[in-house]
């Protein structure tokens, strides 16, 4: 026990089982740890590690998901003395949930009920647990909103969840969890669905509330960087078992277990690439030391592979009786950049900044409004559908974010990889089979997988298939739209390494679209930062990460949690400017983007007067 404190919660030999058709599945097994008052314990693990099951067991919510606590004790030092939550009756649990133990869930969009006002949702719990009158509860709700630093709290009470931004909603959820001054706050991936600047705000908020109230926090996450920033102690879980437990400093500095080491090795850390010339694969535990990938840019080749000039993409907002266009979403606004052969250009930015629309516009999966996209001097935007197929999609392929949605569930993998081969006339007859086999080898998938359906593969394996399909046409450029974002860190590292290895051997270029600054730093030669549809800054990786000039790049970089407990940045309440709406009335013509070249190749958007 740290500091000899009596623990607030101690989990002893927890075992949770789920009944299924094929018999009993063990969710977690033999898990023991404790949380002292005023302490933050992070449970970290990849999907399927049982970290959420553990936290839901503490709330006894796991039973609503079909699980049963088969063994173990969940000792909780509540107000009425110590009790075993595993044995508590439903009545007792109702008195504890939301009262002595508060909980925050991952998805701020769905953890608030869309049909009730914020006031109604906040006061319900107060009236039930604390017996407050309507006016008292309202007063308390107002105080809580002030405590979580929501601007204009009076107005927020009257609003519905959809009127609030994601970050604001999560603040409301936290305020609700804090309503009855819980002694323990369980936060299950509370920032995973949020943008990085909002994540930084929320982490700071949780940290402040913890310090002010002396509350214990049980923080569940998959993100080692968040762990490094938040935890006092860390519990590492893997496949339902506790792997390692210890103070955060020791876990990061001297991990004892193989799995913890592998997990840490797979995490790209911001700043790791300082002073390195080009992208570099991650050193994974148990794998051979990777070669450094050199940028395959032929020296002095003046002709870029892809040139994007003044690209603008707007989506109409339809409204009214005749579905007329009433406004436009300016998704991409006057964006210009180029990509050399064998180069990775990363586009980073927060959700809604237009980075995905930009990638999709280049492939004409979204129809650009104006501008030019030159692929080997051919204007992609001027082509008709047939030429688009023949020329563009032979040279540019796309890898999508969600590995579960990017493959047709009703088609065997070989057939999906075969499609581009036969459609583009690359191979015929039995040749196709050989090609597919070679592609599966290339992305390091067993050939036996060719006969399988997508559901039989894990997320990482599916993403490899998606890459194999993209590679089938031997493309010059692959647009990777958040291609590794949905993957677990260790799988993400493998896929990233594969992509870098393919680049060094095949000389492919990537347009790497991502929100993750640490990943971007790892893989890219050049980086473009997008904000509100515009490219606000573009330059070499070193220029952007070591000498950021645009204020937005600064705030983005300062918001990124660093996977190093010795470099904690989450301390004080942060306040980033909310991103304004990109919706403009019809006919609105924004000023063109003007750039200053601060260094050779380093362009910064000139701030506009307004």
């Amino acid at each position, binding site marked *: 026990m740290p500091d000899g404190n009596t623990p607030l919660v101690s989990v002893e030999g927890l075992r949770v089982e789920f009944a299924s058709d094929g018999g009993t599945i063990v969710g977690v097994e033999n898990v023991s740890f404790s949380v002292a008052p005023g302490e933050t314990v992070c449970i970290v693990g990849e999907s399927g590690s049982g970290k959420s099951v553990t936290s839901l067991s503490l709330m006894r919510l796991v039973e609503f998901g079909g699980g049963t606590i088969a063994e173990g004790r969940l000792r909780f030092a509540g107000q009425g003395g110590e009790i075993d939550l595993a044995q508590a009756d439903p009545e007792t649990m109702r008195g504890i949930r939301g009262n002595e133990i508060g909980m925050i869930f991952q998805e701020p969009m769905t953890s608030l009920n869309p049909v009730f006002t914020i006031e109604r949702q906040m006061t319900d719990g107060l009236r039930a647990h604390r017996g407050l009158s309507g006016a008292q509860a309202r007063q308390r709700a107002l105080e809580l909103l002030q405590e979580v630093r929501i601007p204009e709290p009076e107005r927020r009470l009257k609003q519905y969840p959809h009127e609030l931004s994601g970050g604001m909603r999560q603040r409301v959820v936290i305020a609700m969890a804090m309503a009855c001054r819980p002694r323990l706050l369980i936060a299950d991936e509370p920032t995973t669905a949020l943008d990085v600047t909002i994540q930084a705000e929320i982490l700071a908020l949780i940290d402040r509330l913890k310090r002010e109230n002396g509350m214990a926090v049980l923080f569940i996450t998959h993100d080692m960087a968040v762990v490094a920033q938040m935890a006092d102690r860390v519990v590492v879980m893997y496949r339902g078992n506790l792997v390692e437990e210890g103070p955060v400093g020791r876990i990061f500095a001297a991990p004892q277990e193989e799995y913890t080491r592998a997990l840490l090795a797979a995490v790209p850390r911001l700043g790791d690439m300082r002073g390195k010339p080009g992208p570099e694969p991650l050193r994974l535990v148990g794998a051979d030391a990777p070669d450094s990938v050199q940028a395959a840019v032929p020296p002095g080749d003046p002709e870029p592979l892809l040139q994007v000039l003044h690209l603008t993409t707007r989506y109409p907002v339809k409204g009214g009786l005749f579905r007329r266009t009433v406004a436009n979403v300016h998704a991409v606004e006057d964006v210009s950049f180029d990509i050399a052969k064998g180069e990775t250009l990363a586009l980073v930015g927060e959700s809604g900044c237009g980075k995905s629309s930009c990638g999709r516009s280049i492939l004409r999966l979204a129809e650009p409004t104006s501008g030019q996209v030159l692929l080997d001097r051919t204007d992609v935007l001027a082509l008709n559908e047939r030429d688009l197929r023949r020329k563009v999609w032979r040279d540019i392929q796309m890898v999508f974010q969600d590995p579960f949605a990017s493959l047709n569930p009703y088609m065997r993998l070989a057939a999906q990889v075969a499609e581009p081969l036969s*459609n583009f006339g690359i191979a015929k007859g039995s040749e196709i089979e050989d090609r597919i086999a070679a592609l599966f080898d290339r992305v390091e998938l067993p050939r036996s997988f060719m006969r399988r359906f997508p559901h039989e593969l894990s997320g990482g394996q599916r993403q490899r298939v998606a890459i194999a399909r993209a590679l089938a046409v031997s493309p010059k450029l692959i647009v990777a739209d958040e291609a590794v974002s949905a993957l677990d860190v260790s799988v993400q590292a493998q896929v990233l390494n594969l992509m870098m290895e393919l680049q060094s051997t095949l000389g492919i270029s990537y347009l790497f679209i991502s929100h993750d600054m640490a990943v971007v730093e790892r893989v890219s030669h050049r980086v473009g930062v997008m904000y509100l549809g515009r490219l606000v800054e573009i330059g070499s990786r070193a220029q952007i990460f070591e000498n950021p000039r645009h204020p937005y790049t600064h705030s983005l970089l300062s918001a990124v949690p660093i996977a190093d407990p010795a470099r904690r940045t989450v301390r004080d309440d942060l306040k980033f400017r909310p991103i304004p709406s990109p919706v403009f009335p019809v006919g609105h013509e924004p000023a063109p983007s003007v750039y200053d070249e601060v260094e050779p190749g380093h362009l910064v958007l000139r701030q506009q007067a307004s």
Partner: protein
Amino acid sequence: MRIPAAFRRSKGLIGAILVLSVFLVALLAPVFIPEDWATQMDMRARLSPPTWAHPLGTDQLGRDLMYRVLLGAQTSIYIASAAVLMSIVIGLPLGLISGYVGRTTDNVLMRLVDTLLSFPALLLALTISAVLGPNLQNTIIAIGIAFTPFLARIIRGEALRVAQMPYVEGARTAGNSDFRIIVHHILPNIMPAVIVQSTISLAFAILAEAGLSFLGLGTQPPDASWGLMIQASRDYLDRAPWTALVPGVAVAVTVLGLNMFGDALRDALDPRAKGGS
């Protein structure tokens, strides 16, 4: 609520057996039972409860319900299946094109469908049947057209959803033609919805045929159909409930069988349900 695994495995089998027996009855009853047995009136045994002479009882005209239900199967099943098939043949391409192509095409097609939808299906069928004249073929056409908009709507919605999936975009960039994308990438993914909707439609089609028959536009008396029998029983429910029960059970068994079979078929077509865990 957990359904025992043994039942779930046999659900498809039970469904298949039910559907098969109903179709066999529809097919074989006319071969083995003389047609006029269904129309023979036994005036001394009107509205008779089940007896040895009439195992399932008789109706208000003393006609044997067992023979009527067996011979009526043919008409009911034939009309319902043909009508649903017709609605699929028209509705499937309509919905697919509307959902995949979108824009103006979608607008035009869907306003057309909306117009049809704004009439109650039965009223629509009634009008069509009245215009074309009451016979078997026109009854099928009437029900088929009346059911098309429901199917087209559902298929369009599903196609719209599937068309936005990354794998469809992936298929586009893989150089597939629109036709190939619709057939290979969208169609298999919307089949579950089509199957479920079709089995439900079949049940409603049996009842729609009954409605038309009742109004004199469907099956013409003295021919038997289940719907006609249910409608005829309306006035005798208190005195002779079996007159409704016999055709009612026949419809229920058919619908139940179809639903179970449809569920199992949908699972069987889904590669995710096979193998694995």
